[in-house]
């Protein structure tokens, strides 16, 4: 069973609008590689050249920050949900959806 990566809105320009992507990556380094293969250019906004996640991008596996799970050493488990969350989220207001019945904007 693959793992699911949830793509934040600012990165969806790389994923043709997809908000979730499935991969069979075994660890973080493979995940970055697979994503870049599917969506060329995305890797540079996820990690440095040596594969270190960018300082202001937080990566969660299920409910836990991947740094508490061993970071790059963590081996993904079947069914893991990976969330890419900017440390300071934002930049999506013009593209965000609205909840039913909410009168915003």
């Amino acid at each position, binding site marked *: 069973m693959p793992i699911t990566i949830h793509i934040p809105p600012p990165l969806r320009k790389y994923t043709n609008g997809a908000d979730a992507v499935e991969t069979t990556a075994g660890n973080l380094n493979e995940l970055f590689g697979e994503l870049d293969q599917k969506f060329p250019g995305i890797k540079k906004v996820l990690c440095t050249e040596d594969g270190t996640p960018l300082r202001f991008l937080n990566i969660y596996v299920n409910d836990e920050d991947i740094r508490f799970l061993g970071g790059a050493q963590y081996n993904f488990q079947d069914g893991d949900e990976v969330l890419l969350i900017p440390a300071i989220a934002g930049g999506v207001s013009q593209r965000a*959806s609205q909840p039913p019945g909410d009168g915003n904007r």
Partner: protein
Amino acid sequence: MRSGGLFSFGASFDKIINPSRPGCEIAYGGDVSYIAHLKCRQCGRTYKIEPIAACEECWAPLEVVYDYDRIRAEVPRQTVESRPPTMWRYRELLPLANAPWVGRSTGFTPLLPAPRLASALGAREVYLKNDAVNYPTLSFKDRVVAVALSKAREFGFETVGCSSTGNLANSVAAQAAAGGFKTFIFVPADLEPEKLINTRIYGATLVKVRGNYDQVNRLCSEVSQKYAWGMVNVNLRSYYSEGSKTFGYEIAEQLGWRVPQNIVVPMAGGSLITKINKAFGELQKLGWIELAATKFFGAQATGCSPITTAARNGTYEITPQKPNTLVKSLAIGNPADGFYAAKMILESGGTGDDVSDAEVVEGIRLLAETEGLFAETAGGVTVAVARKLIRLGRLNPKESIVLAITGNGLKTVGAVSGELKEAEVIRPRLAEFEELYLNVPAAAGAWPATSLTDPISRARAL
């Protein structure tokens, strides 16, 4: 211009009369916005003024940039001095295009000389910047929320919210009520009851999350990615954090347009300390002060000290922690501005340090008993860290020191209630009073009979 009104800023500004808020005539309009753009703090990419907070290339925070040349040319310091004593007297350095929608009386809290605390710390010149009496919810968060919700109004948001360790929740709830917003507030479920009540009373929808602040914040980030809401410390963060600068402007003005040689600031996400530094730098850039050369000292609780640990180790890189401290208002294990806070502290010549929960309680009591100021746990952290740094020789007691008191003790009474000896109950008879209360040390009820009675002597002995 309405004469004698709360916002009689001066004849040079046009008057705005907002028809939906009768009685709120605010002289703040005209061409008073000096905002240039948003700029990434890391890669320098610029963005126009929108509800965004992170760079889309490197995810670093975005910073509001102002047209300082125009401010210098058009706004003399005397203009600021002539305005009412609120945070809005520095409005050219705040990111609003229009009059503030909420928090119009926020800020300009007292800067108090603290000679008895100074004596206890063995220091010469100590001041307390007291945001424990800030309006409307008794913490420095009232400043940032006033800016964020006013900006939310400018952007057209009708629903606002935040993730919070307590004080922000209180302020968003209160000011959103006053501003007519629909509100969702996300907090860790184990917050102090006082902070939960001080949020719910305003009618906000309180979302209690099983988890620590960092997990709450992650959820809040996901919410803000999906819904077009104004989340004050997420997509409005670039503007929100600018409100913290007023804490610094006020200190400088209250010291006679000079900055202290040292300042000790409690840190959670790390934003406040960097914004005080930005404030001092802006004042120098405008020529309103001569030299901004303050050494910054960051204060955290040992049970959640990712920034001070980095600073003490001489690095900017933050290793996240799982918080375990009674200082819930500072319990952010993965601080969003931690990198910049540690960097700025070290570049200023200061450092960071942390104290145990027991030392935090001592700090709260020392402040209360020497200066009559009841601060929340973050204030205890600040006082205790200042004492520790002086003893370690890292904070020079012969120089001026400002301690940032950011919240009110009435919000965290549980932290100290168990420490205070219950007063004996007597019958209304003089003999009983004399027997029970005059045969014990002067500060009866406050100290065990075996302790030193004078808080200054006691602090020095500890």
